[in-house]
């Protein structure tokens, strides 16, 4: 299992994470990143990493 961490100070709501990897990332009411299930099974690891690498602010970290 991997764990997704979002630095809320860095997230400014670009929304690339939930646009590209909606199976792992969602949007809150203001369009900032929300991760309903931070513990990510192997099947969703690629999606989790896609969100991580797509964030212009570098706000997401996937810890394996």
């Amino acid at each position, binding site marked *: 299992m991997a764990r997704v961490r979002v630095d809320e100070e860095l997230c400014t709501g670009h929304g690339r994470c939930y646009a590209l990897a909606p199976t792992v990332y969602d949007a809150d009411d203001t369009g900032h990143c929300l991760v309903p299930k931070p513990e990510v099974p192997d099947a969703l690891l690629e999606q989790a990493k*896609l969100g991580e690498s797509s964030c212009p*602010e570098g706000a997401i970290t996937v810890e394996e």
Partner: protein
Amino acid sequence: MSDNQTRMQESLAKTYELATRAFGAPELSGPRATATPQSMYAELTAREPVRDLGDGFYSVLRMDDILHLTRHPDVKQASEFLGSDRPAIPLGLDGPEHTKYRKLLDPSFTAKRIAPLEPTIREQAHQLIDRFVDAGKVDAYLAWCEPLPSTIFLSIMGLPMKDLEDFLHFKNLTLGNDPAAGFSAEQRIARRGEAVQWIQQYFDRDLEEREQEATPRDDMIGSLLSTEVDGHRLSREEILDILGLLMIAGLDTVTASLACFLSYLARHPEQRARIVEKPEILPSAIEELMRFESPVAEGYRKTVKPVELPSGSTLPAGAYVHISWSAANLDADFFDDPQKVDLERRPNRHIGFASGFHRCLGSHLARLELVTAMAVWHERIPQYRIEDGAKLTYSANPRAPHALPLVW
């Protein structure tokens, strides 16, 4: 002159000076006026990633430095006044006041709230194309790129379409800050003042009408009128300032983007063919064209304390800083083969919508407009090229060919 008017004049003068020092030299402004400035940016970034332009003016080109600056608490907005003598909301603000307004506004501009606008955007895009599709030629900038965001804006704001011509006229007056237009500083300020007054009176009349109505209308202005954070609602003055900013931030930017994209695709038929064959790549293609073209080329900031940059330099307190989104989007440390256009590039962490505190509020709306409009264009006019012999000249910021003669 009031205090605010003095501040506004100083702010406009400083940012104009900054823009001129940063990219006024012919060897830099020349490439920027063409369709292909990308290699100039790459070369400049490699040679001088932080440029001391003298007298406290600086130019920063690297992605890491720009990300650092735009999220730094000691770095403020430099272009605070975008037309009137009250700071633009929220672009002209910083710190807790800025956060307060972003919290109020963000909910109205999320991807979810924006999505239902797609049919309106489709309809407007089609209607404009109806007027010229059979002619086999058009100045796409004048006939489509320029009016389309304004027709969408009027639609979203529940304003009458018959006002489009007036609206475009005064909108253009508001935004005349292009050094190439040749106006003196006094002339620019006077034109802007006149235009902003007209626009605010125009919106004010609409807000007066709405005040007489029992229930708020179900549109963007209705949403702004009823939005509330910590018991705070927007005052009439705040709404006028916000609407003014939405106009400045949401019209010419999208126009420039559409024009840059059409120009690129007109000159690269093999890339255009891929979009026509597989329209589902459009969202990704739009991101890549945003990165490569960076229609909003730059932003301006000022430091209130010394700021040490990741690349090693330190900017002093009181520095005026030119931030190049264009250069950052071509940074080889953040993008593989950045000079190559890969319409399915993944990942693509560009900052064409800015970064940090002032990340574009309208980015979701912009993306929806761009993807939808480009889909409609290619459904109606899949083959097109630039008219033989036409020479394209691009404005500096937002960057766009202000005449785009296409034939099909």
